[in-house]
């Protein structure tokens, strides 16, 4: 198993660091899948996580100048590692001004992702900074746990309001309740509601727009057929999970949307130019 990548462009390095920082805010540990064309950060659904799962896809060509990998075997040309994204994020943060950053899979005291950066100095010889981030190799028999989740059979799909606004609302609602109901309809309306014994608060968003799934969606016969545009699909979720998701976002995505499976799942999707992030929050009763 071999992996070696090199980032030379400052903007790419910056973007890459920000993606990893976002991931680090969502979860303590996740799985990194490396394939010849992509990198995936995967969090699979587990009771320990509260049932949330995450799928983040990066196209390697958009970040790395050089990228070579050799997977476990020619048929399974992939590498699966369990990693703590915070370590990666910390390592990358300190080398933002580097001339070049190499990311390699190495074996030091344990398997590591080594981040080796060359920092510019006044003299002709650069400083070399090396960070060894310990990782765990995931054996092939467990790979089935980390496959791309299929888009659920959602009832409503709607674009999200500006994330910052949403975050402000959710932050304040968190003080009042542990659970939040998010509901939306096909008319571009979304409500965030909390309800306690003393008070109920609802924030209304209008004219958000609904993404046209049509032929692009992976399920058959789109759910929007024949659905009353005003009828709301809702999901009651743990407010902390939603807040965690909103907190971590560092950059405004090109597209932000969510799919709601009525009383089952909230599926959030963020699309940037070269990164896509999906986050699933299960609904609670």
């Amino acid at each position, binding site marked *: 198993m071999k992996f070696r990548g090199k980032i030379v462009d400052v903007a790419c390095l910056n973007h890459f660091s920000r993606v990893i920082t976002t991931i680090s805010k969502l979860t303590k540990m996740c799985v990194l899948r490396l394939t010849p064309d992509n990198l995936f950060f995967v969090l699979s659904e587990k009771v320990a996580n509260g049932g949330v799962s995450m799928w983040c896809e990066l196209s390697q060509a958009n970040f790395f100048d050089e990228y070579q990998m050799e997977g476990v075997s020619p048929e399974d040309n992939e590498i699966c590692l369990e990693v703590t994204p915070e370590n990666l994020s910390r390592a990358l943060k300190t080398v933002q001004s580097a001339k070049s950053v190499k990311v390699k899979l190495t074996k030091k005291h344990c398997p590591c992702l080594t981040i080796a950066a060359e920092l510019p*100095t*006044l*003299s002709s010889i650069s*400083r070399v*900074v*090396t*960070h060894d981030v310990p990782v765990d190799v995931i054996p092939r028999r467990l790979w089935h746990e980390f496959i791309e989740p299929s888009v659920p059979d959602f009832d409503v799909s709607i674009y999200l309001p500006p994330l910052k606004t949403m975050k402000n609302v959710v932050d304040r609602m968190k003080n009042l309740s542990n659970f939040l109901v998010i509901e939306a309809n096909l008319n571009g309306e979304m409500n965030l509601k909390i309800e306690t014994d003393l008070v109920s608060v609802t924030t209304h968003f209008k004219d958000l727009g609904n993404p046209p799934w049509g032929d692009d969606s992976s399920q058959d016969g789109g759910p929007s057929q024949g659905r009353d545009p005003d009828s709301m699909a809702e999901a009651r979720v743990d407010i902390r999970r939603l807040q965690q998701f909103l907190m971590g976002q560092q950059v405004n995505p090109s597209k932000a949307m969510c799919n709601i499976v009525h009383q089952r799942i909230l599926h959030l999707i963020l699309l940037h130019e070269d990164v896509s992030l999906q986050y699933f929050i299960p609904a609670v009763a």
Partner: protein
Amino acid sequence: MDCVLDGNCVKAFGKAIHALSRIGDELWLDPMVRGLALRSVNSAHSAYACFLFSPLFFQQYNLGSVSEEGNETIKCKLVIKSVLPLFRCLSSIERNVKRCQISISAPCDRVMIRFFCRHGITKTHNVRFQESEALQAVFASHLCPNVLKAPARLLGDMVTHFPVSQEEITLSMTSLRVSLRNYFEGAKDHIKTMHTEISLHPEEFDYFQVGVDSDITFCLKELRGLLAFAESHCLPVSVHSSATGSCVVCRPVCFSVEDMVLEATVVLATLIDSEIRGPSQPTETPVPTTPRCVHAATLPVGSCEARSNIPHDITAVTELVTSSQDSPIINPPALMQLLPQTDIPNEFCVPDAACPSTSTTPASTVICSLLFRALSSDEDDDSCAAGLNVLACYSDGEETMEDYPRSFLLGEVTQDALHILTFCDVAQSRSK
């Protein structure tokens, strides 16, 4: 003692206090003829800092009348917690304070710190002190084989690569490069933590002298204060250190900055781990073991690592300190205060180092306390001072009594008792 600082200097003075607050809980104010010294020592006696402001730093500097006892004025020990808040907000000090007056008068037990601020406001603070002889770490820096002088920002930039929580780092020096890496103890930490290493070329230093290849490990947290100070004053930082030997005596490392009106020094004890070796480290450094040194090295002391400023460890350290002193195993002359440490299983391994493990003793890391002596008769030389009952010199194989390389004296003379911290080889003690 009475001195006045003008506005610009108050900020520097405040920064010094910030740096000292990272070291210990107590601050010694020591007015001397050659300047006002501020000193601090951490509770484990493994870190010492001294900021010496020369009389030129002050607008006015009066030592006051010569006291009856001799040529020394009062020595004050203050609790840093009571002084730090006065200088906490340096930017507001910079804006508002025009002058600051610090005075100590013998009859009362208070230091008066008076800020003359804008708009006619005067703030007077009286801080109680305890009279106490200060400790001064004696460090023969001119005898260190390894000297580095780093431009102001270099070390500061280097340490940003390490997380703020990183306790200790290892500085390795060879003639080809200087590197810093983080240090772990214990196999469990070792596996799952991130290892960081930074490698610098000698060209980056203003002055580079590596007489002996060495690896030294010291506490980073205590150093950060000095580095912040150096950076704010754009002063280069000098690093003096000796090679690690396989003798158990620790060889502290000294960081210093100076300019025309002030000098700041931080002396840190280093960890001794016989298994930390860079590839270029010779497997066996010729150890000038005097009989007592060998004896000390084999002391069956249960050891526990001393840490500065970590609350949960302090009680452990202090308990063990007394126990080791009371321990019947230890013979008084060769008293080696190894601060106690839990035995680390011998799994510590350093990547690509052929660990020449010294024999069967499990890898044990020991932080020795620094050696100090009282300031009673300090001013002139850093050689053994007369008047101390016990002086210890450790010689590195040179038999001459004149210069004892890397000798660190110790003794804390309080008004009550002579308290011996550590020393070795009393045979070479001498009186002047």
